[in-house]
Every structure is written in C-alpha cells, then in structure tokens.
C-alpha cells in the first residue's frame, strides 16, 4: 500500500500525483522505489477521481468508547 499512501499524501497536500513526486515521498520514507510499480500507480490513478472515491469510501466504525473525557 506504500504507493497508495504516498499518493494520498500528495493528494491531501493538493499536489499533482506523478512519478517524480511519488518517488520523492517514497524515498523520503526510506522505501526503495520499484520503477514499474511507480509508473503503474501513476498511470492507474490518472483514471480515478480520488476525491470521489474518498468521499464514498466507507466511514470507519469510529470507536470513541475509550476516549478520555
């Protein structure tokens, strides 16, 4: 999921998700970048409206039971 987390990070930062940007983020996390995967993610995400997907992604069962008051 590293490539996806990196993409979401860029998306959250309102940056363009391209190979260079992904590479920068992944490298900064100490991840050795696989060029094939990198290209594949960048290409696949071009076809996806991330905002739409995030909006409709499930809202997690948020547990607050143990949140200290």
């Amino acid at each position, binding site marked *: *999921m590293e490539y996806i987390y990196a993409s979401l990070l860029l998306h959250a930062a309102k940056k363009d998700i391209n190979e260079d940007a992904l590479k920068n983020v992944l490298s900064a996390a100490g991840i050795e970048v696989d060029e094939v995967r990198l290209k594949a993610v960048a290409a696949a*995400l071009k076809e996806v409206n991330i905002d739409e997907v995030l909006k409709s*992604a499930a809202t997690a069962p948020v547990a607050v039971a143990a949140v200290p008051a």
Partner: protein
Amino acid sequence: MALAMKAKKIADWKIKEVEELAQRLSETKTFIVASIEGFPADKLGEIRKRLRGKAEVRVVRNTLFQLAAKKAGIEIGELERTLTGPNAFIITDKNPFEVSIDISKFKLKRFARPGDKADEEIVIPAGDTGMQAGPILSTFGKLKVQTRVQEGRVFVVKDAVIARPGDPIPIDALAILQKLGVQPVYIQLKMKGAYQDGVVIDAEQLKIDLDSYRNEVAVAGRNSATLASEIALPIPEVLKASITKAFQRATAVSAEAGFVTPETAQAVFSRAVAKATALALAISGSVNLGVVPAQ
C-alpha cells in the same frame, strides 16, 4: 345583615389564601399549571405524595391564583389562557422541566371505564376471586376465563390474559377487574404550561422527549468522533480511527484504480467482481448467467 356577614367571612378566607399563595410564589418564582379535569382526586394525592420535598401541589381557583400571582409580581402573560377549567398549581423552586419529567415518569393507574384501551397486559390471575358463584360465572365464560366453583366462590383455573396492550378492554370485564382491584389504564396529569422567574413555558415546550435528547447526544458524540479522527486529533484512541479510515481510503483507491499488489488484490478483485455481479444481475431478467442476488 346576616347575608353581608357571611359574604365578608368568605372574602376573609379568600384573602388569606391569596396572601399565603402570593408569599409562596414570590419565594419560588416557579410553578406548573396542570389540568385536573376528570383526574381522580386520589391520584392527585399520589402525585402530591411523590413530589413531597420537591414541589407542592395546590388546587386553587383560577381567579384566586391569578390574584396571588399578581400580588407576587408575576407577569404570567401567555399562561393566562391556561387558567380555565379546574387546575392544580404545582409550586416548586426547582427547574420546572425537572418536575414535569418526574411527573411524566410516575406510572399512575386507574380502573377501566367503558371504551378504554389496555395500557398493559391484563391478566386475571389463577385462584380464588372471592366472588360468590352466580351469574358472574357466565361473564367469566364470555371472557373465556376457565373457572370452577369451590365453597360457593369462583376460582380461576389458570392465569388468563383478557387484553394485550392497546387492545380495547372488554366491557364485560370491567366489573370483575374492579372487584379484583386491577387498574389497567395509565393516567397522566396534563400539564398546560409553566413559569419560572419571568420565563413562560408553554405546554408544547414542556413536553420533553428524552429519547430525542439521547439521540442528539449520540449524534453529537458521533460527529465529534468523526471530526476528531478526520483531523487526527493526537489522542491514541482517536488515531486508531484515523488509521482505520486512512487504510480504508487507501483500499478504496487501490480497488478503484485496479492497482494490484498482494496486499490490495483482495480489494481490487472484490470490487471488480462486485461490479460484474451487479451488471449480471441487471440483465438477469433477459440473460441467466447463474448469478443470484444475496439476501
């Protein structure tokens, strides 16, 4: 002469009551107006007893109450409209909503009258009814209650349910229920309004739906938890929710993008299969591809 004397005496009594009430109202600055029309006097006594130490229930003529309020410097405003018909005045120094919630929680019951519906399951218990055998036996028969006669009295063979909550109470049962001391109908004191320290509360506002408050608290709690996890409020429990969200979002994005890794394969293929299945189902009316909808 004698007539005038009598009139003056009554006036004295009234003046005393008004003064005393005015004194009380100026201390508490709080009261509830409740209708006691058709309300059994003994039940009012029960309410009085249960509110002891918290509120005082007074039955006062409307005109006298109005005078007393005026004397106490209370501007009853809109509540003036409630001062018709027989009323009780519940005088308290507590939050009037607290008192009205208390009152609405009291389960007061009365004997059934013709046309009543049961508020709870009505059971005629097995055993000695204490009633003399006679024509009453046929009434039990009509109600389908099995009886036998022993020592000249009617015995019920086994517990018999004659009405469930919401059912009309059979008119034949009324006399029997009365003799058995069964009071199956709930009564509520009808509160018409309240006043506290310059604030007038109308009958509608006075009705408190506790469930809706619970619901609002739940919604507020959920909203807070959602917002907290969205901004990753740095509390470990909240961050667990944030992580879950982030993971689910990443999964959704992988699935939608068709980005397969061993980690995302499940999500990707589930998504593709879900879409294929939905499409197969959509045309299943004309082409049977062997896909069945799930329950």
